[in-house]
């Protein structure tokens, strides 16, 4: 019994450490990013959520989860299209950097985790991740990408994206509550 309690204690402690360290990590970006690096990070952050939505479409049977995933895929694609149009207009080539690499690496782990879930536990895992991911991305956009971007059009595009990210977060929390009440 004591062993189980100890094990549960370790699991809870590990979960807390994971949440505390992962959530704000993108917002703790130390070195200043250039506009091409910011454009790259923005595209990667949006693409990650499209990839998570693709997994949801494959694995979920829940109508609310599927509707949410469809919205994520469409909205983040629309943001990428706008970003691509802007960098094309500005003749800027998005440049890989520590932040975009971190976003890609973390997303690879998340995809692995989501794919490993059973049909029963997938929906909650997906929505929980969407809540955490949107919180982390909103913090990064507001505290790193917007303040560090020098081109006014790029800054404007990022500012326009924040309300959509916040609406996605609110929507994800709404679906999350449905799972909590079941």
């Amino acid at each position, binding site marked *: 019994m004591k062993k189980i309690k100890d094990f549960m204690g370790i699991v809870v402690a590990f979960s807390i450490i994971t949440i505390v360290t992962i959530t704000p990590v993108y917002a703790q970006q130390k070195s200043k990013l250039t506009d091409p690096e910011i454009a790259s990070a923005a595209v990667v952050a949006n693409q990650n959520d499209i990839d998570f939505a693709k997994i949801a479409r494959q694995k979920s049977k829940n109508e609310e989860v599927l509707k949410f995933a469809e*919205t994520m895929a*469409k909205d983040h694609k*629309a*943001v990428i299209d*706008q970003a691509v149009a802007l960098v094309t207009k500005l003749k800027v080539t998005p440049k890989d950097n520590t932040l975009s690499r971190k976003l890609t690496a973390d997303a690879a782990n998340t995809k692995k985790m989501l794919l490993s879930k059973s049909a029963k536990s997938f929906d909650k895992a997906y929505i929980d991740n969407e809540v955490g991911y949107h919180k982390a991305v909103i913090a990064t956009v507001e505290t790193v990408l917007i303040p560090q971007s020098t081109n006014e059009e790029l800054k404007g595009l990022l500012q*326009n994206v924040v309300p*959509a990210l916040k*609406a996605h977060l609110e*929507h994800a929390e*709404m679906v999350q509550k449905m799972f909590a009440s079941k």
Partner: protein
Amino acid sequence: MRRLLKISKKGVAVLFAITCLYSCTSPEERIKKNEVAVSTKAHTVVIQQMKFAPAELIVNEGDTVTWINRDIVDHNVTEEANKEWSSSNLRQGKTWSMVVKKAATYFCTIHPVMKGKLIVKQ
């Protein structure tokens, strides 16, 4: 002959009273009584920053409301309680109009956290 004269005098008096009453009624009261046609108005709701602006719109029955999507992402406008009416999905820059028949709360089915209200003046 005298009797006929009496009747016609009464008739004139009644007609005079009706005319007087009608002209003494205010335009607002006549609108309420459906005695005159009400000119309808056009209103615009802008969809921007994931919000309907204004979120609450006061209209008269028969007024036309046009929604315009200024966001990057698609939106729609759907009656909330029974989905009695709905626009198709509106891309950036697209509009949709509707003549208001009754008060309603509405939302965007793509982003269910976005809500708006049409209030019809009584």
